[in-house]
């Protein structure tokens, strides 16, 4: 199987503070990787480093065997929608169309019929084609999140990178988004940063736990030793009504 993302010995510093330290992480093609960890544990930093938005202090990131900065078009990025300006005068279809803009700068650029068809298809794919001509200000959180997924798909990437896709989204939308991601995972490698234990326990195929360094990488089952390393204290993880337990059955320590 091909390696989608290959990270070797990655460290990232912000000034004097070290945000990430010696990260080794391989994501193979077709994987559904969840990244979890405490706030300030470097989850966003790792995403930004992969996307080339922040400089890497040491180490290397490769995307499909090429330096990440040269191969960013393989990534479809879905940012947290809460950070975005919802008052911006733009319609849904226009947002998706921006995913198809040319590299560099494109003077006198007009979207072709084909571009518009593709954008429509992507809206259909995420199930909000009825909202194509709506203003983004009129969307609910879940719809906005799906719109951003549609925009990422319009880039036609092999990897989808999502930052907290279910943060501040209602329960129904959350379920829809995860179902959508599971479907998309048949064609695309998915990496998502999340606090959502439901996702971690039942949706993702692999889990990476970040707290400055990579504490754990493997099956989506975490024992309390790892949780202790992650959050610095024992955490009681009870997932009600979830088919998988986040924690394996474990014995009480005497």
């Amino acid at each position, binding site marked *: 199987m091909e390696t989608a993302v290959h990270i070797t010995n990655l460290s990232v510093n912000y000034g004097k503070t070290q945000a990430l330290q010696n990260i080794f992480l391989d994501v193979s093609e077709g994987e559904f990787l969840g990244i979890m960890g405490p706030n300030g544990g470097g989850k966003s930093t790792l995403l930004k480093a992969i996307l080339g938005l922040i400089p890497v202090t040491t180490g290397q990131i490769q995307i499909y065997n090429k330096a990440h900065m040269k191969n960013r078009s393989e990534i479809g*990025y879905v940012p947290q929608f809460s950070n975005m300006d919802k008052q911006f005068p733009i319609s849904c279809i226009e947002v998706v169309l921006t995913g198809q803009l040319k590299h560099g700068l494109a003077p006198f650029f007009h979207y072709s019929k084909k571009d518009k068809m593709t954008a429509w298809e992507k809206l259909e794919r995420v199930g909000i084609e009825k909202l194509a001509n709506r203003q983004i200000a009129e969307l609910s959180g879940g719809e906005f999140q799906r719109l951003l997924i549609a925009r990422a798909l319009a880039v036609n990437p092999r990897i989808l990178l999502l930052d907290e896709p279910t943060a501040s989204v209602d329960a129904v939308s959350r379920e829809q988004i995860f179902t959508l991601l599971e479907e998309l995972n048949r064609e695309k490698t998915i990496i998502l940063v999340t606090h959502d234990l439901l996702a971690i326990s039942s949706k993702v195929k692999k889990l990476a736990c970040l707290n400055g360094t990579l504490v754990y990488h493997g099956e989506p089952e975490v024992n309390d030793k790892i949780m202790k390393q992650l959050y610095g204290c024992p955490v009681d993880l009870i997932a009600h009504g979830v088919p998988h337990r986040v924690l394996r059955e474990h014995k009480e320590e005497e």
Partner: protein
Amino acid sequence: MIQAVFKYQFLQNALFASVLASIVCGIIGVIIVEKKLVMMSGGIAHTAYGGVGLGYLLGIEPIIGAFLFSLCAAFGIGVVKRKGGVQSDVVIGLFWSLGMALGIVFIACMKGYPPDMNSYLFGNILSVTKSDLKWMLIMTILVVSVVLVLFQDWKAYLFDEEFASIIGIKTVILEFLLLALIAMSIVVLIRVAGIILVLALLTAPAATAKLFSSQLLKCMIFSIICGIIFCVAGLWISYVVNVASGASIVILAVVFYFVVYGISTIVRKRKVRS
């Protein structure tokens, strides 16, 4: 007044200048409001005062001096913002006062009777000269063409700069281009509204347009129309009441915005209730 327009060259110039200023305000105003660069534009405008002073001191066109100073301020702020480490509003504040201070020093260094700086501070559209108009026209054409030619790139950049840079759009070039455009626009606006009042002319039409339209291009067109109405009506008021044109234009624009804002808020509340 209409007869007077045909009779007097200075009124024709004033009207022409209003239209040019409105076009620039409409386009750049919408961009800086969306990109939240209003205060930065204020800083760039005030730095231009130093350029005006230097222009007088060296005996070149003050408006050229103003342009050079705004451009330097724009790039200075842009570079510091990009490098990080310092809050950009701190740098904006520093440029703001440094420009004003330099202007005062340059004027003080001049021999003889000091020139009338008021028309640069508060604007006097009635004293716009042919040479001012020529510069304004060049700047307006530049601003309009740069924005229109790269319109789709601008839209993506303004909506989500991060995403635009990931898909390979040259956002750094766009950012510095935008800063240059802001500097140019301010030069165009200085003769109409003056350094101090420029902010209102950049924001009021754009903010008013935003209440009516939800498409970027429509916002710009609407904002241009608002600008022309404000400028021409303000000019007429200043002609009739005999007050400074810059002040009357700005007061009109700001009052109009708040009235429209008030009405639209009430209408929206009614809609929610019903």
